[in-house]
């Protein structure tokens, strides 16, 4: 029997596999496919204070081994979430993590504060890295200073553990990670999507209603893995890796590179039971390699 549990310090997970925000709905969408309690946890879709309409369609384009999305964080807002959805999730024996959004720095704090008053939330994930809601795809996670300020503000208003989610659209990902760590984040997750574009030759217009979008899926895995490797060597807090994870083997690469846990995003669309398959695959791999505790894999890369 392999021990799949991982301890992030502020949070114990029964296994290192979390479903990524924006790809797992509010969790309930996946109930027809498997028992959510089998997951290490899941991160619900990003929430603002108010309901959001989201971006103009088309919102998706497929690209070679990848997917560009420009959803623009359509959602019901934190109040409706706490009223209508959270009660259904709160009893689950798995880590429910809420992805926190904000138009400006203060909104992040207000959403976090609101959520902090409710039960059933294991941690907050601070989404300062969505490329789909600001002009030109900009986001706070592109600046160490803005990252530091936002994390700090949120830490002041909630005692829930905080995972700060970084953007890959930066020159030096470690600088941003260190800023988040300094400001007191309990963990770092990365990567969000890469700012991208596609053009329709017939109409000569962008394929996405919002012009730019975020690239995810297997195409970005090599970039994500590099960034997780760099960040894990730079910070002391646990790192949660993601970007194109479609198999247990992919997840293991991220763990070897230094991730304590992983998130699975786009794969959930292709195979609704992707997380489950990955958890089982981790177990099989560990058994085959005589590994007793999966957490031993974290950072085991040899240079």
């Amino acid at each position: 029997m392999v021990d799949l549990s991982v301890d992030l310090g502020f949070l114990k997970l029964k296994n290192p596999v979390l479903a990524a925000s924006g790809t797992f709905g509010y969790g309930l969408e996946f109930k027809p496919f498997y028992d959510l309690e089998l997951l290490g946890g899941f991160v619900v879709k990003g929430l603002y204070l108010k309901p959001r309409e989201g971006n103009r369609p088309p919102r998706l384009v497929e690209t070679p081994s990848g997917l560009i999305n420009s959803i623009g964080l359509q959602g019901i807002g934190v109040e409706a979430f706490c009223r209508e959805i959270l009660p259904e999730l709160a009893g689950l024996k798995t880590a429910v993590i809420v992805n926190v959004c904000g138009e400006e720095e203060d909104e992040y704090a207000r959403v976090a504060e609101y959520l902090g008053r409710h039960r059933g939330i294991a941690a907050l994930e601070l989404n300062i890295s969505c490329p789909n809601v600001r002009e030109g795809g900009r986001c706070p996670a592109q600046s160490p200073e803005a990252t530091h300020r936002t994390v700090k503000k949120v830490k002041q208003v909630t005692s829930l553990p905080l995972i700060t989610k970084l953007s890959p659209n930066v020159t030096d990902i470690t600088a941003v990670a260190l800023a988040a760590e300094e400001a007191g984040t309990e963990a770092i997750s990365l990567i969000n999507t890469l700012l991208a574009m596609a053009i329709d030759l017939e109409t000569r217009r962008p394929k996405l209603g919002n012009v730019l979008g975020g690239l995810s899926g297997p195409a970005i895995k090599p970039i994500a893995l590099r960034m997780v490797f760099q960040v894990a060597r730079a910070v002391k807090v646990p790192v949660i890796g993601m970007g194109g994870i479609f198999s247990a083997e992919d997840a293991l690469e991220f763990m070897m590179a230094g991730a304590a846990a992983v998130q699975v995003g786009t794969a959930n669309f292709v195979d609704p039971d992707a997380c489950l398959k990955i958890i089982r695959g981790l177990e099989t791999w560990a058994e085959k390699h005589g590994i007793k505790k999966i957490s031993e894999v974290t950072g085991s890369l040899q240079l």
Partner: protein
Amino acid sequence: MVIDRQARLVEVESWGDYFLFTLDSPEIASQARPGQFLMIRVSETTQPLLRRPISLHNAEGNRLQIFFQVAGEGTRLLSLKKTGQFLDLLGPLGKGFNVRPEFREREIFCVGGGRGIAPLYYLGRELRAAGAQPVIFYGGRSEGDLPLRYRLETAGFEVLVSTDDGSAGFPGFVTSLVEEELKKRRPAFLYACGPDPMMEKLAETCRREKLPAEFSLESIMGCGFGACWGCVKKIRRDGQEKYLKVCQDGPVFSLEEIVWQEREHG
């Protein structure tokens, strides 16, 4: 809603770019309703990445049927599957057409353009079972784009065909054929599935004629089961216009709900 990774392809019929697959998938077949769809895995590699949405053309006993046209890489790969191979299906998905008791003994127009004909066979069967009289309109660019004509006719449906180039049936758009028929008879309801220009024209006609209708919409889909918010269209519901999910709240919407947008990109 289930994942069936072992749906055996038992029969393939094809006409040029058009394919009719018969699949063994007891669990999905037992839950299916007309207007619902499947998400089908077309490749074992990461390219193309996503499943492809394809309507249920029919479900009977343990069997499903799909009818599709090769539109790009994904449907091309699908078309290469051979009898005996297994397909990986997710379904049935979405809300289907609503067949109402008051349709009994009334004529119902079912209008399909091109590959949009796919769900209307199943719908026609359901209408007939409910005692209604489906009239199937089938439009294509040319005679070769009407491969299901014979199948629909031998199933005993009244089938009216049109071709843009006049090579078969009514010469002109299927929407004009519907207009012509409306001069002659008054159906209780209209169902439609087809390309955007056809749908917009039909919407106009239905509004003018005060003919209640349901339209099956297409949209690029990330997941097909409500998890990605990628497939939305603007819909008027409960007095508000909002982006609803085509995969979950649709693909069938009632005509008056649909907000026709200035032409979307792409």
